[in-house]
């Protein structure tokens, strides 16, 4: 028998539609490998490895209760954010063929290379209401938990004779699950700098690299990573501390929230007594935040670093040629300034004498909001199946987040592709996968960015567009090329609406994902550019005056009034909140779209 158990492959028989318990009446003869043993005995452990696999399997499950919600089993994955109505059909593979391949004792990568597509389509649980994660995600996650639990289970002495005793095994399993603690940490990585020059933006790249490095080096621990957020699961308390230390060492500071519970709590099986408050990912939002900084001096004499203002400015910087104004920087900021500017297009635009208007687009995904939204969508899914779901049934577990991670990545890539197609490679700088900067030939193009984004979200995550509680946060900031990035970042951090477009020096357009299409489609109406321009100009004097002009319908024949009425009808502007655009937003729209004079006569 081969020595290495590939934990991911424990559920391989689900691909053949013949996932049976070892005590099942149907005996399947498989290869004599440790992996096959895992396949057969992961639900009824027969040794320490299969017990570990069993616990990992439970932790990685989308639901702890194999409970049916009725209807035919299609086997396909139902993605909550796609809400496609009917899950995709998953075909069954030929069992002999799969067993033949297993006989070669493949590792996980080899298996994915051969059956990756089928693993994506097949749900972890075929039953309706349980089929919210793919088999692949579940298998990968099981492998990660299996490795995390390595050496942490405090098992009874090996080779005890009672592995065949079901009750004894159950007792051991319970005891371990009640004793072993699993901590989930939500880490948000922050940087103290307020970047001004193009080279200062290297801090963002450093941050992305640091997050990517953590996700790679702690691949088993990092359940979810998006932008500056990391969700880390660990059995060993030293691991999250080590991650925090690495991030601080790289020059960042970290905000951390944690939920700790026993494995039994996390498995959350029905009927199992809970040790304390419910241990769930949703609880992360309620936990107090810790701040983790590096060594901070109690006091020091001037000068202070002018970029981060967190350390003595020990290095003088006078520009690459040495003829610029003198700036005092700390070692960290100095290293960014000395390095090569990684964002070359920004520098080119600065020196090229071209249009100097930029649109910055940033997509954020607050993890607590994501968890809450997924939970809401899950409740909705179960309710549509005709059952009133119990609280435990709709819990968002690790597997659902891991499943979402892949599609979020797809969304980011699709938005990037869309922006490239719309603006051209030469006019688009990808700062980070979720942060783009587009050079605008025409200021009215700014709303094109939101248009591209809206199309992609609607296509890839339509359920998010339907809900008022969409966890995505889209930020568009239109500014002059010289406007310091530190301020752009601050504006995007302070934004609160689901979709917010800010014109620096102008107004803010705040709306929801649900109404974004309606707002953007205003551009397709035959609106008089001058009417919007007039409104924007009046608003510069007084917003009250602009409101007065807007409401004045005493001259139905007046061209401006007709434009205003058209907008009114389009957005059903009876209640500003329901319209998805408040008055300030309307003025911002006018400033962004109406202030230009498109050749087609449309704004």
């Amino acid at each position, binding site marked *: 028998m081969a020595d290495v158990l590939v934990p991911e492959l424990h559920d391989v028989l689900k691909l053949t539609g013949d996932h049976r318990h070892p005590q099942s009446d149907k005996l399947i003869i498989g290869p004599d490998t440790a992996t096959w043993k895992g396949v057969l005995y992961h639900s009824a452990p027969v040794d320490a490895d299969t017990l570990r696999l069993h616990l990992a399997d439970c932790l990685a499950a989308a639901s702890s209760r194999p409970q049916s919600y009725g209807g035919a089993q299609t086997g396909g994955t139902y993605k909550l954010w796609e809400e496609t109505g009917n899950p995709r059909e998953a075909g069954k593979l030929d069992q002999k063929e799969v067993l033949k391949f297993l006989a070669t004792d493949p590792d996980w990568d080899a298996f994915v290379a051969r059956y990756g597509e089928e693993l994506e389509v097949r749900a972890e649980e075929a039953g309706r209401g349980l089929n919210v994660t793919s088999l692949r995600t579940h298998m990968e996650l099981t492998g990660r938990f299996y490795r995390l639990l390595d050496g942490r289970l405090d098992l009874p002495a090996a080779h005890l004779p009672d592995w065949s005793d079901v009750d004894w095994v159950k007792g051991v399993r319970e005891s371990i699950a009640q004793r072993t603690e699993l901590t989930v940490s939500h880490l948000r990585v922050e940087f103290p700098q307020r970047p001004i020059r193009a080279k200062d933006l290297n801090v963002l790249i450093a941050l992305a690299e640091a997050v990517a490095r953590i996700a790679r080096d702690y691949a088993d621990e990092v359940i979810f990573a998006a932008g500056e957020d990391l969700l880390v699961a660990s059995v060993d308390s030293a691991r999250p501390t080590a991650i925090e230390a690495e991030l601080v060492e790289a020059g960042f500071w970290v905000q951390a929230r944690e939920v700790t519970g026993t494995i039994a709590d996390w498995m959350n099986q029905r009927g199992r007594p809970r040790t304390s408050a419910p241990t769930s990912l949703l609880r992360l939002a309620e936990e*107090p935040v810790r701040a983790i900084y590096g060594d901070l001096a*109690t006091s020091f004499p001037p000068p202070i670093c002018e970029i981060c203002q967190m350390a003595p400015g020990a290095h003088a910087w006078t520009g690459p040629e040495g003829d*610029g104004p*003198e700036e005092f920087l700390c070692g960290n900021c100095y290293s960014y300034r000395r390095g090569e500017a990684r964002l070359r297009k920004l520098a080119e635009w600065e020196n090229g004498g071209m249009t100097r208007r930029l649109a910055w687009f940033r997509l954020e995904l607050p993890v607590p909001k994501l968890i809450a939204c997924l939970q809401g969508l899950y409740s909705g899914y179960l309710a549509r199946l005709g059952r009133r779901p119990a609280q435990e049934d709709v819990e968002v577990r690790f597997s659902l987040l891991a499943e979402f991670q892949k599609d979020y990545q797809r969304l980011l890539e699709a938005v990037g592709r869309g922006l490239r197609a719309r603006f051209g490679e030469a006019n688009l700088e990808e700062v980070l996968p979720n942060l783009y900067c587009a050079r605008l030939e025409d200021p009215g193009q700014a709303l094109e960015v939101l248009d591209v984004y809206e199309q992609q979200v609607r296509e890839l995550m339509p359920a998010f567009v339907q809900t008022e509680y969409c966890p995505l946060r889209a930020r568009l900031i239109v500014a002059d090329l010289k406007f310091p990035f530190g301020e752009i970042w601050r504006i995007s951090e302070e934004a609160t609406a689901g979709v917010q477009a800010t014109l620096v*020096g102008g107004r803010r357009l705040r709306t929801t994902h649900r109404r974004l299409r309606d707002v953007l489609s205003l551009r397709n109406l035959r609106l008089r550019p001058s009417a919007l321009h007039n409104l924007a100009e009046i608003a510069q004097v007084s917003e009250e005056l602009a409101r007065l002009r807007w409401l004045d319908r005493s001259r139905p024949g007046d061209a401006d009034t007709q434009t205003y009425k058209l907008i009114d009808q389009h957005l059903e502007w009876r209640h500003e909140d329901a319209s998805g655009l408040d008055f300030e937003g309307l003025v911002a729209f006018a400033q962004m779209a109406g202030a230009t004079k498109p050749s087609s006569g449309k704004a």
Partner: protein
Amino acid sequence: MSAGFLRYELQSEVICLGERLKAGWFRPCTDTIPYSQISGALRWAFGETDLHAAGHLCCYEVDHLVQGPRDRVREISRIPLRVQVLRQALGSVYVLANEASRVLPEEFEVQMGALRSKGLGQCYLRRRGEVPADVSGVLGTLNTRIPLGRQEMFGLREVQMPVHGYLFEPTSLYTGNYVLSLFEGTRVVAPPFLLREFCHEDKRRDLRVDEIQVLCQRISDCDRVWRPYEYTSSFLDTVGGILADHGFGVAGTFLSTREERRESVQAAGLKEVMRLLEGCPRVQQNRAIGRLIIKSLETLRPEKHKQAGGQGRKPK
């Protein structure tokens, strides 16, 4: 917490609560009132070294100014400096009530922040009451910046999630150190007046109101304006146009000539509007505002005057 606090309302036309100059050309601005800035301004103004204060801003407009500073030593102009400023800033300042604070009058002016030599940072403070010493702390988000060493003085306890930064603390007229401080965003148990969650009380008393909004309200409230059942668009357009092009004198005279005619009731009402418009400095500066208000006058008609009871042309 030691003694109580004196609460002052702060108003400033334009202020730059300066952060450090960035890259030699951009000076950002904080949107709170740090301990170091307000305490330094008060000490400088009153010559008392034991004055301690902190505060926050509740409303302002962010704007940018471009300055062309001159290097007096080298006799050359430096690259333009872009300064982020807060216009029409309104906030609250809390001064520790102690022996030194007795010198503070009910109302006074201090200069605070950057570019004071260019006229920025003129602050008008008016006493608005006191906060007792025994006010109990609650958990919330800090809305100001306070050095770690001054925590106790301001009643800050149980820092749950610090947001750190450094504030300058002078040691003499020419020297000082940067000291580790708690910045806005810190989760801490503190007196409510220092916390973001409780600053909405200040916002409710927003003194920075839109003059035009006040003017529109006055017109709406004036019964004599609404004697006519309705104003005709053409008449409003004519009067508004005359006002914008020729001023109050010509428009007023024109209305007097119409009092003998068909539009007499409308003319009388509009004369009342004209009186109110003339009382608004912004309309005097920019008569186009007056034209817009006159043209949209019917929008301001209050509900009670939309019913029968007026004079002139009856509604169709």
